[in-house]
């Protein structure tokens, strides 16, 4: 990133381009300015591999992420754990370039999606966020929109036809495990759903644009245990179609849902490994101390 963008901080403050009107795409695509059109990425089980190479992120003078190099493999769930302020959310927000939306924030290093540098100047940031969806801590449906309109909000920017919107909306609601609960009230306001349903609505909204990667930042922290378990079950199903990266403070949740767990401390990556090993016999003493609750 640095070599191609010597003024990276400027890159981060560039205004977000308006989404380009184009023919509806049945699949994730990252458009590159200057090319003849959206660049379709290969589909299949090996799509959605994310690589971080020496990623650093700052908020002004605060060096929040320090030289992290890490792979997120396709069709796997990776959990990021660590105490508050360790940089886990910042690192994840760098993957879909949300970090740069914050005033004074900057990043350096490389974020690659299937080998494509997401910080390349030729890359359309909107396409990045279409390929790398995100679900936040609190459900954030558009309050005035219906359930269906919420799900298809992102799709409409692509100029999809009404029929296609309905088809894709239905598909996304099924994928988010919400269809049976809302099929009779698709026109009702999304804000009228329960908290857990609203969060799955947001997941459906992210899925509707067929991302390759789904980032989840504390997706269950505002939900009750039943709604939490539904989301966790959903995560297990979602990994068949998207790479899932979940930031969580709940270590039991990480243990339940993740194939791979990453432990961060002080902005640095301390240890990454198979979840069962991380929670039974971690290599690093700091991981041991954290997962056993000896500090937090």
């Amino acid at each position, binding site marked *: 990133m640095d070599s191609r963008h010597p003024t990276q901080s400027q890159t981060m403050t560039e205004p977000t381009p308006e989404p380009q009107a184009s023919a509806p795409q049945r699949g994730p695509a990252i458009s590159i300015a200057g090319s003849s059109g959206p660049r379709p990425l290969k589909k299949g089980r090996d799509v959605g591999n994310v690589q971080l190479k020496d990623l650093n992120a700052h908020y002004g003078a605060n060096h929040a992420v320090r030289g992290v190099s890490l792979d997120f493999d396709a069709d796997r769930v990776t959990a990021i754990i660590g105490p508050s302020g360790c940089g886990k959310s910042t690192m994840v927000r760098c993957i879909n370039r949300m970090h740069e939306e914050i005033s004074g924030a900057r990043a350096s290093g490389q974020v690659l999606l299937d080998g494509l540098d997401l910080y390349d100047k030729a890359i359309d940031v909107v396409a990045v966020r279409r390929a790398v969806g995100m679900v936040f801590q609190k459900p954030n449906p558009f309050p005035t929109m219906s359930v269906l309109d919420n799900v298809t909000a992102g799709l409409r920017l692509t100029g999809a036809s009404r029929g296609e919107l309905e088809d894709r909306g239905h598909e996304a609601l099924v994928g988010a495990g919400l269809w049976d609960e809302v099929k009779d009230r698709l026109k009702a306001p999304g804000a009228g759903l329960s908290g857990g349903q609203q969060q799955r609505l947001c997941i459906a909204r992210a899925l509707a644009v067929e991302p390759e990667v789904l980032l989840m930042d504390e997706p269950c922290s505002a939900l009750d245990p039943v709604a939490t378990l539904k989301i966790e079950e959903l995560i297990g199903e979602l990994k068949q179609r998207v790479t899932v990266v979940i930031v969580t403070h709940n270590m039991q949740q990480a243990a339940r849902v993740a194939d791979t767990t990453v432990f961060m401390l002080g902005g640095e990556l301390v240890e990454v490994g198979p979840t069962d090993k991380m929670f039974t016999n*971690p290599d690093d003493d700091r991981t041991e101390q954290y997962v056993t609750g000896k500090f937090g």
Partner: protein
Amino acid sequence: MTPTETRTQYQEELERLEASALDGLDMVSTALQRTLEAVEQQDVELAQLVVADDDRIDGRYLEVHQSLITLLATQSPVATDLRLISALLHVLKNVERMGDQCVNICKMIPLSGNEPPADPEMVKLILSMGGQARALISQAKRAFAGRDVELARDLVIQDDMVDELNRDCFRLALEIGDDADRREWAMTMLLGARAIERIADNAVDIGEQVAFVVTGLFREFEDASHPAG
């Protein structure tokens, strides 16, 4: 970030339960000491006391076992804590089994009656085995408390001595002659020797749990089904 210590009550409870489980080894050692005395003296009353006192060992097993299950259910232990709890559950089972072996020996003493031992040499061997088994119990406890894998591995060597004494008992039993009463006595003593040999094996099992707690890998020190060399 400055880490702050947390979960002190949970850690204290875990330490208390470990101490309580390991204290069970002292209870077993005492039971074995009395068992050996009962064998040597053909003391039926002392044997009955050991049998009755096994309820205390069983009670310790149930109490600590339940508390460990509660910790698992409520505290979601992981990493070393999880391995420790898993190991303590094994230790408890071994303690309970060692106590039962003492009971098995003591229940056989009335069978041999209040008559003088038929073969003092065999009694001497059994007492020697019992003393060695008690040393193993003590060593297993020290190894666990100190997380000392080398000391734990040494239990295998000490156990070999118990096994050798057990084989000596078997040879003596074969040579004891044709008298039916003496043969019956020898068979009873052989069962007692076998029980002591199992107690020593239980101590080695505890040693294997020490290695598991420390390394995170469970490996039998010696595989009975595939003995080395």
